[in-house]
């Protein structure tokens, strides 16, 4: 059964091609496990916009859900 989980998302933030980038960690609570990875990023962005912060920019891959788990422009690593 899909549950709700609380996670931390450590995302690379870089303002522009020549800017220095850095990792920023965000708390994301109550994420539905049935959600796709991209939907999770959307939820994070909703939260950021609500806090008047800059949302995370990413390429919306076209609607091929099979590649959603390996979305263009991202590599995902897990750490606990």
């Amino acid at each position: 059964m899909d549950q709700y989980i609380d996670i931390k998302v450590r995302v690379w933030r870089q303002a522009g091609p020549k800017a220095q980038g850095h990792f920023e960690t965000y708390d994301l609570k109550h994420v539905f496990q049935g959600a796709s990875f991209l939907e999770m990023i959307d939820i994070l962005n909703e939260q950021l916009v609500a806090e008047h912060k800059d949302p995370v920019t990413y390429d919306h891959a076209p609607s091929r859900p099979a590649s959603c788990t390996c979305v263009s422009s991202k590599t995902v690593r897990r750490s606990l």
Partner: protein
Amino acid sequence: MAKKEEIMEAAKETAKKVATKVAQKAVDVAEAALDAAAEVVKEATTPIITPEMAKIPAGPLELKWTNYKNHQKLVNPANKRRLDVIVVGTGLAGASAAASLAEMGFNVLNFCIQDSPRRAHSIAAQGGINAAKNYQNDGDSVYRLYYDTIKGGDYRAREANVYRLAEVSNNIIDQCVAQGVPFAREYGGLLDNRSFGGAQVSRTFYAKGQTGQQLLLGAYSALSRQIGKGKVKMYTRYEMLDIVLVADENGEKRARGIIARNLVTGRIERFFAHAVVVGSGGYGNTFFLSTNAMASNGSAAMQMYRHGALFANPCYAQIHPTCIPKHGDFQSKLTLMSESLRNDGRIWVPKKLEDAKRLQAGEIKGRDIPEEDRDYYLERRYPAFGNLVPRDVASRAAKERCDKGYGVNNTGLAVFLDFSDAIQRLGKDVVAQKYGNLFQMYEKIVDENPYENPMMIFPAIHYTMGGIWVDYELQTTVKGLFCIGEANFSDHGANRLGASALMQGLADGYFVLPYTIQNYLSDQIGVPRMSTDLPEFAEAEKAVQDKIDKLMAIQGKRSVDSIHKELGLIMWDFVGMGRTAEGLKEGIKKIDAIKKEFWTNVYIPGEANSLNNELEKALRLADFIEIGRLMAVDALHREESCGGHFREEYQTPEGEALRQDDKFAYVGCWKYMGEDAEPQLIKEPLDYEFTERKTRNYKN
């Protein structure tokens, strides 16, 4: 004496009452007469588009296109390179048009909002592409493909356009094979075919479950070749925000360029061309949740509309019957399961309401329900077509069962698509070969094994048959402004058959526009390249900048998505599968309220002159709100049910769509009359010369 006076009084009272009643009745009758007269006046003064205005060639159906090509004007090779053409969009229609026009010698400027032309939404189409090759020798022909398409469109499409589509369908397959598109083949080495909804012949060509991707890659390769040669200037991550019109020597306005925003830098730029072609796709994302990509939008269509192009049949939106059901409120898009699954899958819900309740509670699974307790409702209601009834019929049938309580998941909004019979009949390996990647996709998303348990599906918004009105030459009412692919309205009528969207996009781009645009450009060869310093370009740019500044300044409390989701729910509830006059009026009121909310309370972070996805979404949402309202207005005026437009008040006793051919056999075209003004209706009557309108019967 008193008694006499009393009687007199009573009589006077009665007389007064009767007189009042009679007077009231007279007023009622007069009002009704006035209303009827107003209707007659409205009818008489509703502008009409004639076949001549639509540039439909005369003559027999099967010769119209040939006659057109034989007599049209052409542009000679030396002159072609002096003419610039802008193509907006790189989907099947846009990429094939840009590539073909460049091959012919025109100077092409091609724009797309994605990072690469190959990421247009056409890439997601799964099922297949129709053509009248009759390789299967099962009775197919150009005429039959024409007939199936126009019937499938519920007799609300233009005969000439649909026939032409069927005519060039074979050329499309030839072209794709020549480009190296890896269509599926049979063991003998020849092309394989499968059946699709709405057809009794096997005419669909496919490439595993990714036909859209492969066709798009074919067009993308052709486009890439032209870009490599310098014949197409490619502008990726650019979004068109307005069209520039310049008056000619007769004072007639012509499309002479676009204003586009560089999505990475935020800069607004001006581009000139002798003609503008728009292939920007459909407006399904008005519903927020649809099978479209998140960036798919109707903004280019709205820009054309605001400059005088007509928006035709906006209410014809197709709901695809086989999508993965919604699983939550945060969901941002829906996943389409190819219609080809209906070839071998069987759709059912439980016969018993108690079984449905237990499924909804998660107590049992689909495979636990014995055969005799399954209601294969499509096979039951439509013996001749069974599970292959057209999409609108299948979608409404699913809604009907779920509305009655027979839905099979926790939301009660799902039906089963079962492969156990096919697995038994063909073997698991054959099923895996045909549908493997689709099954894999389903399992990844839903975490259920479709080989062991029936899939769950539910209808969702998928395609829009409505769009910008174009004549036989694919030109809008604005001179020099052409519209191709899903963005235009022409060929599918009120309902699109499966595997014909891909066909229409490539037909328009490869085999129709390259001819018809020459007819327009032939008398433009003397027009020099105009400077983008002209006041018309400056004004257009300023208008775009003002709009962006206005949006950025609002700084309200709500995110763009939150308002978009609200719009989507209103659209699904009031302008969705089953529409009513009351519901549509309510929907229009609610959309008006959303519009106000958006323009006073939207919050867009960041800066306009930088990469700003929230600003991009806001600009698109502003247009979705307008499109949503237009859809509702169109649906309200169309008092009949046909194809993708179902009015509960107009149905047969069996719940099928009831057309009103005597009153509504026309294309409903809407003309922009100004911000916040009601649009004006213009009609293009569809007087059929060659085809008899029958009731769409999929029973026998």
